[in-house]
């Protein structure tokens, strides 16, 4: 466990100094800061739009960070030969990979926390909202965090056998598909004209794909009149789902990485 934590904390230290990530983060924070000023998009439902926009900015920025952070993680270690020094120590490959992943997720958590704080401040400044409303607003970034951890696991898994550029598009593509497939599938399955075969294929894909859409819980949060039936239960379900998926991806990644010539 000790090596894993050491590798994780080193990864965090490295990640929060990476210029690319800091620039992306800065852009995200800037957008958050000017979000209340983008009046062209606000109507009478100013609060609704503000919430939606801020959460959207956090989600998009986090997704970009999650991918950029993870696709270069293994290739960089190999290119700079740091991995050899580490693997020649009593560190198993799975420990290295898990440590790297946990480090990436922790760095992501730090950056997402920062953005959430900015969001809360801007929201507080703009709306003078009560604490309970802000706490409710924070549910979305929490779910995004699980979503981004899943995305990071996808990218880490791919990074054990494809190049960063390919990985960028693979993971990004999977994120898009995984975010859009739920509504697509829903439309497909509720349409009576869909052939049974198509339905079966869609159902299979739905079961196999990482369903990033599960974590897009912003709608009821943006509009307080909406509620989730059993919120706690839903959140637990999708979190367990994410953890299981992450576990599977990491083990697959380890199996590939173990065989990999570095």
């Amino acid at each position: 466990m000790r090596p894993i934590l050491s590798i994780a904390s080193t990864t965090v230290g490295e990640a929060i100094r990476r210029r690319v990530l800091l620039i992306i983060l800065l852009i995200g924070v800037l957008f958050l800061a000017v979000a209340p000023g983008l009046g062209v998009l606000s109507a009478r439902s100013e609060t609704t739009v503000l919430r939606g926009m801020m959460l959207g900015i956090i989600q998009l920025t986090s997704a970009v960070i999650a991918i950029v952070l993870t696709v270069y993680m293994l290739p960089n270690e190999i290119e700079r030969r740091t991995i050899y020094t580490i693997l020649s120590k009593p560190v198993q490959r799975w420990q290295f990979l898990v440590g790297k992943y946990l480090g990436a997720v922790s760095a992501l958590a730090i950056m997402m926390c920062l953005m959430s704080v900015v969001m809360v401040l801007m929201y507080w400044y703009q709306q003078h909202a009560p604490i309970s409303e802000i706490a409710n607003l924070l549910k979305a970034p929490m779910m995004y965090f699980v979503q981004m951890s899943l995305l990071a696991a996808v990218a880490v898994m791919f990074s054990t056998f494809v190049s960063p550029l390919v990985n960028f598009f693979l993971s990004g593509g999977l994120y898009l598909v995984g975010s859009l497939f739920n509504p697509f599938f829903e439309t497909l399955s509720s349409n009576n004209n869909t052939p049974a075969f198509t339905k079966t294929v869609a159902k299979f894909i739905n079961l196999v794909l990482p369903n990033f859409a599960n974590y897009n819980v912003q709608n009821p949060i943006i509009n307080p009149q909406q509620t989730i039936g059993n919120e706690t239960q839903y959140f637990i379900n999708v979190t367990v789902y994410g953890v299981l998926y992450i576990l599977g991806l990491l083990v697959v990644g380890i199996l590939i990485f173990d065989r990999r010539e570095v």
Partner: protein
Amino acid sequence: MQRKPSSLALGLVAAAFVGQAALQGGTIFGTWEKNYSPGKGQLVSGGLSPDQMLFALSGFREMVAGILWVRADAFFDSGNYDAILPIIRLVTLLDPNEIDVYATGMWHIGYNFTDEEQRSDRRYIPSALALGKEGAAKNPNTYELFFETGWMWYHKIDDDYENAVSWFEKAKLRDDMLPARKDLLSMAYQRAGRVDDGLQNYYGLYDDASAVYKKDKAFGNHQHMDTIENNIDTMLVRMVQRGYEAEKQGRPLDGYDANPPFDVGFSVKATVLEPRVIRFEGTWNVLPVGTRIRVVLKDQDFKNAEPAGMKWDFSDNVNLDPPKNETFMQDQLYVKNRRFNRKVDMSKDPTMYPFTGQDYVMEFFYNPRSAPPHIQDKFSWNGEGMTDKNFLNTNVRPGQRVMYTTLKLTRDMILRRGEWQDRVPVIKTTNYQETGTTKQDEDVILNVPSLRGN
């Protein structure tokens, strides 16, 4: 030395994937579908979701616009108009050729923001017009947005018909303008008082329609020709009946048409019953139904104000968030049995009626150009057949004889604060008499002549 995957690892992978699939298929998707899927009435979202934004940023603007528009449809069904507005603005920004979105957006902004008693929030109309102007400018090859903007002036603003005329004229210039819709230009000419132009337009349309019929003897084409013929017929009769022809020929007007002008005898009393609740009572000596007197309550220093209204198209900006500190209430007083009595409750919509200023003005306004034809038959297009002993006004609408008067109110009166906490504010015109004090038989009752005879 090849490494074999351990069975523990493989088992773990299998268990994890089976577990996630079971969760996804078993419970999550069901709840997700219920809570979040687009297309369900319950769904509400502001702006673009990240995936849509990604598409938008990567150049699929039109596609996103399409998706959003489909999505907005669900909100129309559920009546969630607030959610639609930003979508409309986004769609038109993303894809300026979405004519339907412009048109629907205009209609939506102009008509759908209402208070609890279905009074339109007219502070939005400049934005609706701005959207129309923008849409017309960006889509100059189709008549649609010119027509829609004209319709906004003709039907919603229902006061300044010259603007409707100029937009309909622009629409008529576009090749795809529907022939049937060109008729509306003649109506607009009439309402603008330009009767001759209306007639000339009809004649032109008739020629066009008969040319079409000559080429294609379809029933519909014949019908269209007939319709125009009928319209011309009616119009010519009215021109005679309302003294238009006589005036032009220098003949004296007589009882058959708009002479002598009829005194409508307007009086009004406004009582602030409760905070933000005002009752308007008064008189209007026209017996036939169909009279609507406009009442406007607005800040005395309302920006871009005009008598009994505002400069409706003062802005070229589609501002979906009009000033929150301005109040503008406009309503109609319906006359029945020569009296009107209407309670206006503004207490349920503090955002629409913020009452932040100190002084307010109530305007009462009647413009015969908006009157139904059977009343216009006496008052004529410009009010030649109408007068009011006290409140006839020929300045606020140049070239027209209208009824216009104002009364003043303070914020304290409306909110029933300060000295008005316990006293009921009553503001009235000097000629107002309480019911029962006038003898009914002393009244002059308007007798509107008709083509069918009395």
